[in-house]
């Protein structure tokens, strides 16, 4: 075994503003050259653990530490954040937020500037690093022009320029489309292999990280380490389920089929999985599960006809788009970052005005209606709840739309309370919003839209940044709303969400609709997946490898079965 580089010993940390410690009695050793994945649900303390390693705790976020944490055999609390940053390079989750320079070269150089490196030498070093991350031809490019994957490369370059030993990635997949996420994981793997760095990845999307091999997975729940083992061992245990972390879908399918998962099966990747021992069981499960009925057509509620739009003259973000959504449907809009998904949602709500084309609600044309008029028919929930919340108290926030519409007070009270009950927020109605978790805030924003009784709700990334438990909660809640007759449109990057909850998917690339069919069909169509930066589902691969003749139907049946099982969850 190589040299230990990070060592937590009986480490406990409590934020100054909190009563209970966030990390409790952590004992963890990470060795030089290891690649470690740290997973855990929201609020488990995994981000705090990352902050301890890079020095933000206790130097930026103050609190009380007991026990010891050493990096390179130096006790971190006796160092300062700058010395720690010479050992640990951190790539934060939002590449846009962490760019400091304006051009690629300038951003990579930031750390060198702070070290007072002379300009000439600095330029040479930047060129060297940019070759490593494959950006040497883009040194003068503005960061805004880059794609999501390129941005990730630049932020990696910015920390590698310091020649750190440890690379720490804090939720690297959070804002990337599925294909870009896959490339990011591959890039991290390549860098680790080439440079022999120690790599620590904090993520809750286990299946996506396991795309490339990982030495160890550490599971954190409630501030404690509940598991510290190899991916194969972990997937063979029940730790993930009890910690509310989503297992890879193919593993789930194998479990449903009654296969005993053992480390010998090599379950950490669908390609390494020894499927032979499970084949029969999977086939038997497939035969026994029910065939899914196609959904009945109803009347269209929302349609777009030949809509085109550009933010500036001569530029078109949306090109001649036509589609129609039926009453009671749940539809996802998917595609690359910047393909025009959010713009489409804005056009529907009237935030932007179409250049040409028409929008219909039922049979009525609403192309020229104002935002205010449309809001009573079509509600939109933004990705970031902080962009919507403007009151201190939950009741006031939810009632805001009704108050401005001059609804009588008695009716407001009734409607708000009814909505809060539907959203499971009734017990908190007199709470300040600041006391809520992110997921609950999201619900408040949904409630504040729902109270206006729209027939269609559009959600922009409804589950971004949510762990599996909150994800399931939010999605089941939306499904509940859907059963009450509300039509739901979701803009999303989450392939699981699309597969599980939206029977139909509209795929957008470069401002055009390139596919409009069932989500399962989209995610099993290799060409389409490539074109729109999506990711094939591992279930499909599993079905192929198990020798099922109708892999698409297999995916369908799994989804239906899985949802039934999860409904019984406490």
């Amino acid at each position, binding site marked *: 075994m190589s040299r230990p580089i990070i060592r937590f010993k009986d480490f406990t940390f409590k934020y100054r503003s909190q009563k209970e410690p966030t990390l409790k009695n952590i004992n963890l050793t990470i060795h030089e050259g290891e690649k470690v994945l740290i997973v855990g649900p929201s609020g488990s303390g995994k981000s705090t653990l990352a902050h301890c390693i890079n020095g933000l705790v206790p130097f930026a976020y103050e609190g009380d530490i007991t026990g010891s944490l050493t990096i390179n055999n130096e006790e971190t609390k006796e160092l300062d954040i700058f010395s720690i940053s010479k050992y640990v390079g951190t790539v934060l989750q939002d590449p846009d937020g*962490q760019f*400091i*320079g304006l051009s690629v070269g300038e951003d990579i150089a930031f750390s060198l500037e702070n070290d007072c490196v002379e300009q000439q030498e600095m330029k040479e070093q930047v060129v060297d690093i940019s070759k490593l991350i494959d950006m040497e031809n883009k040194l003068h490019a503005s960061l805004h022009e880059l794609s999501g994957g390129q941005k990730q490369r630049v932020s990696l370059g910015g920390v590698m320029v310091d020649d750190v030993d440890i690379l720490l990635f804090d939720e690297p997949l959070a804002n990337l489309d599925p294909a870009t996420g896959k490339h990011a994981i591959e890039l991290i793997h390549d860098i680790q292999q080439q440079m022999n760095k120690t790599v620590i990845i904090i993520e809750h999307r286990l299946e996506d990280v396991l795309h490339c091999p990982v030495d160890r997975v550490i599971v954190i729940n409630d501030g404690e380490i509940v598991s510290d083992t190899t991916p194969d061992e972990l997937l063979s245990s029940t730790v993930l389920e009890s910690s509310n972390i989503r297992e890879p879908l193919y593993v789930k399918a194998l479990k449903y089929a009654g296969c005993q998962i053992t480390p010998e099966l090599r379950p950490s990747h669908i390609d390494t999985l020894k499927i032979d021992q499970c084949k029969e069981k999977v086939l038997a499960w497939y035969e026994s599960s029910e065939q899914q009925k196609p959904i009945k057509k109803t009347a269209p509620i929302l349609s777009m006809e030949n809509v085109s739009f550009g933010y500036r003259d001569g530029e078109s973000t949306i090109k001649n788009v036509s589609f129609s959504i039926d009453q009671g449907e749940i539809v996802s809009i998917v595609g690359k970052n910047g393909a025009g998904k959010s713009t489409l949602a804005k056009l529907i709500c009237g935030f932007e005005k179409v250049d040409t084309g028409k929008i219909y609600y039922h049979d009525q044309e609403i192309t020229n209606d104002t935002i205010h008029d449309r809001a009573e028919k079509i509600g939109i929930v933004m990705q970031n709840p902080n962009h919507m919340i*403007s009151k201190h108290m939950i009741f006031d926030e939810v009632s805001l*739309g009704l108050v401005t519409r001059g609804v009588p007070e008695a009716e407001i009270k009734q409607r708000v309370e009814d909505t809060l009950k539907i959203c499971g927020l009734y017990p908190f109605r007199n709470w300040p919003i600041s006391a809520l978790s992110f997921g609950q805030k999201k619900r408040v924003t949904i409630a504040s839209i729902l109270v206006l009784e729209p027939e269609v709700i559009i959600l922009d990334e409804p589950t971004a940044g949510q762990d599996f438990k909150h994800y399931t909660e939010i999605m089941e809640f939306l499904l509940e709303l859907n059963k009450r007759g509300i039509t739901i449109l979701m803009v999303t990057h989450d392939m699981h969400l699309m597969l599980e909850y939206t029977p139909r998917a509209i795929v957008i690339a470069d401002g055009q609709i390139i596919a409009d069919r069932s989500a399962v069909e989209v995610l099993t169509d290799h060409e389409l997946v490539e074109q729109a930066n999506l990711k094939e589902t591992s279930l499909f691969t599993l079905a192929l490898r198990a020798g099922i003749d109708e892999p698409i139907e297999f995916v369908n049946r799994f989804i239906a079965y899985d949802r039934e099982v999860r409904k019984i969850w406490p």
Partner: protein
Amino acid sequence: MAVEMLSYIEKNSPVHRLSGATKLIVFLLWSSAAMLTYDTRVLLFLFVISITIFWLSKVALRDVAFVLIFILIFLLLNNIAIYLFSPQEGVSIYGTSHVLFEIAGRYNVTLEQLFYQFNITLKYFVVIPAALLFIVTTHPSEFAASLNRIGVSYKIAYAVSLALRYIPDIQRDFRTISQAQQARGIDLSRNEKFFTRIKNAISIILPLILSSLDRIEVISNAMELRGFGKKKKRTWYSAKPFRRSDYITIFVSVIIFILSVIITFYDGSRFYNPFL
């Protein structure tokens, strides 16, 4: 949008090639000179040079038209206010009174007053091209470096340049938030009563502050993790080294500054008096 209009305009001109620090120094000298003097001859001379340099920079007038119009409106208001509050200022400065016509009471129009306000306007016209040029021909990356070079602490210099840089982002946030709020019936347009509009604006400001605080937390963490603030000094990747043209430019503008101060003050008055 206004701020986008005030952003860097990429051109290849002698003005663009100068280092940002040079432009900042020249701008400071230029505006001090224009502020000190009321000497019409000096102002006219500075004005001609200002216009010439503006022409040299290849910046098109329409690129800065929005800001220019904004300043001109402000200038007009300023002139009206001066006249309203002190219609006899020119007379008391120049000591004579050539009345063109009477309006009412102490309000009449004199050549002296017109000349005085013409000088004020001229001051604006001397400073405007210099200020605009400094902003639109200095690459934002170089901005902080230039401030630092003339002695501003690099932390403050960086804070200023980051603040400027985040304005477009905050505008975008503002737009998103205001759209979301409009959908809930919060109207900021003229259809609403003034008082309600103010109240409604507040409901956009709270979320804007919260999301800006988030942004600040992320960026300050990112900066600290990459060693910002570690040392007393720092170097700059995009600072332009001083070249001969920079030294010449600074030298020439110092000469102009000194000359204009001498001409202004040699007869003991900051005003040039054509009425004597």
